[in-house]
């Protein structure tokens, strides 16, 4: 190994590593706390001083997915618990009367998230290819216009959208939310995908065109396979945005198409806020994003800067 002036010395590396690790632990602590709270009982969760290790229980998850009523001792006696979740509820003198709305809300998030991701990546790929390869009048202005739509404050946009959706019968529907999120995500997908397609050498398509391919064929047989990684990472970014979005969801949806982010904070137990249930909802909702973030780590920078910084 050759000596390099830019290579930091050993102690330097150690100190840097320790400091970064310390910050990393502080940063991850609230997230670990969410996950650990979800496995605590309601009393352990609000114990003073806060308990790091409490008795393990799935009570939070059971509360999250079910609605319950208080039962008299005789009624409980008469109906012995049949399943493990019945048993958890029974111990608190309650009985399950049905599922909660969390499952529905979670499914809404899935439907709206995947629907809008598919649409925005599909339309985005077409537009990005055109912007990358063809001469389009006012190209720079169009690209800036597309980017600027992403910057707009959601609350300000929500006023006319609210009126428009009401007029078209789209308020509180899946279709309305999918269209809205698609429009918001299009800017990201066009900018990111244009960057990815710009990187594919034009020679490949030109060779294909000379071989007798049409433009369409060259696009889907040559360019698309080359851009597959880019398309996949763009899709994950769009999905994460739609998954996390709160402002539009809270203003434009209520009973039918409400997604999980506006719902989770409204989970309330019998006695005040049921923190283990809230934490359970948050855990189920956040862990998939954490996994995707780890998968995406090579493309993160590109995604969050609209493809400006490539690493």
């Amino acid at each position, binding site marked *: 190994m050759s000596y390099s002036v830019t290579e930091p010395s050993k102690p330097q590396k150690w100190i840097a590593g320790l400091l970064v690790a310390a910050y990393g632990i502080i940063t991850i602590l609230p997230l670990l706390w969410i996950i650990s709270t979800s496995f605590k009982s309601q009393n352990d969760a609000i114990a003073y001083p806060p308990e790091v290790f409490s008795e393990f229980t799935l009570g939070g998850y059971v509360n999250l997915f079910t609605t319950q009523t208080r039962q008299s001792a005789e009624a409980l006696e008469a109906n012995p618990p049949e399943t493990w979740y019945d048993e958890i509820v029974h111990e608190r003198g309650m009985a399950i009367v049905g599922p909660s709305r969390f499952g529905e809300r979670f499914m809404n998030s899935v439907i709206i998230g995947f629907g809008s991701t598919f649409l925005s990546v599909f339309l985005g790929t077409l537009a990005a290819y055109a912007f990358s390869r063809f001469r389009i009048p006012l190209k720079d202005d169009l690209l800036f216009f597309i980017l*600027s739509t992403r910057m707009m404050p959601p609350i300000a946009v929500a006023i006319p959208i609210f009126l428009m959706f009401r007029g078209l019968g789209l308020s509180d529907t899946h279709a309305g939310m999918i269209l809205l999120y698609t429009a918001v995500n299009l800017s990201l997908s066009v900018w990111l995908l244009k960057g990815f397609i710009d990187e594919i050498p034009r020679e490949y398509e030109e060779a294909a065109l000379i071989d007798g391919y049409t433009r369409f064929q060259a696009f889907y047989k040559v360019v698309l396979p080359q851009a597959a990684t880019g398309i996949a990472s763009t899709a994950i970014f769009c999905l994460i945005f739609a998954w996390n979005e709160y402002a539009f969801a809270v203003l434009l949806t209520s009973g039918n198409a409400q997604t999980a982010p506006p719902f989770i904070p409204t989970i309330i137990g019998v006695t005040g806020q049921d923190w283990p249930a809230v934490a359970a909802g948050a855990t189920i909702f956040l862990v998939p994003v954490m996994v995707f973030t780890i998968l995406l780590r090579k493309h993160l920078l590109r995604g969050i800067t609209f493809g400006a910084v490539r690493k």
Partner: protein
Amino acid sequence: MPDSPSDRLATATPSGVARTIRGLSDRTIAWIFVAPTIFLLLAINIFPLIWTIRLSFTNYRVNRPNADVEWVGLQNYQRILNDPDVWATMQATAHFLIWTIVLQVLIGFALAWLINRKFKGNDLWTTIIVLPMMLSPAVVGNFWTFLYQPQIGLFNTVVGYLTGAAPDSFSMIGDVALAPWSIVIVDTWMWTPFVMLICLAGLRSIPDSIYEAAECDRASAWRQFWTITVPMVLPFLMLAVLFRGIENFKMFDLVVQLTGGGPGNTTTLTAIDLKREAFERWRTGYASAYAVILFVTVFGLASIYVKALNKVKER
């Protein structure tokens, strides 16, 4: 050449269709590809925008659809721009904006500089630090109210342990003086990694040869830092600051879940105030003028942002 791809397509699809596809010029294809995107953005962004501008000159109220809509000219704008309460929300936003940017730039740059020491496992720690940024601000903000509980909250316990203060002696989101800082802390926790990642990209874009040349000239490490590292990272830092500035100027989800704008109006940021005008007091015309003011400000900042973006791209 009977087996060329175009022949296969020609036999696979009806000849009429094949001829039509073949006949499309690049120009037509370009328009077919771009049109849906432009159309959707026109329908969901530009059309509502024009509608907002129109409404901003009226006294329309959504909850009174039968009342006469009057044309009031610039009256809504005059009222907003002379209202000390709206001005106060701008100042609350300014406090939030300035402190989050200062803290995120300082911590983010320091972290990036440390990670760039290339110690073992730096990838792992980078990934861990980045996690909060990708999560739902509303869900995380809501959970932070639990961490901020006096007595039982993790935050108060840890701060109490470190400073010796009793954990139940202060309430981050209940105290008028502390609440503006409670939102700064959570936003910094969430978005420092963003600034860090961009700074890291800036640091990695500096070629080693520049430092080697400086070493030959016997420039001190301190001097190298201020004459090479900082100026080379600055365009990247500009990008991060502008982006965070725009995002926090329109901040809504995190703060609404964390403090709901309270106590009093101490954390009522502009977007939260706008939401109340538009969706609680239903003063649609007034709120539209309010929205236009925010639009123009964000649009102006976005044009500067794109300029900074192109500058970074050129490198």
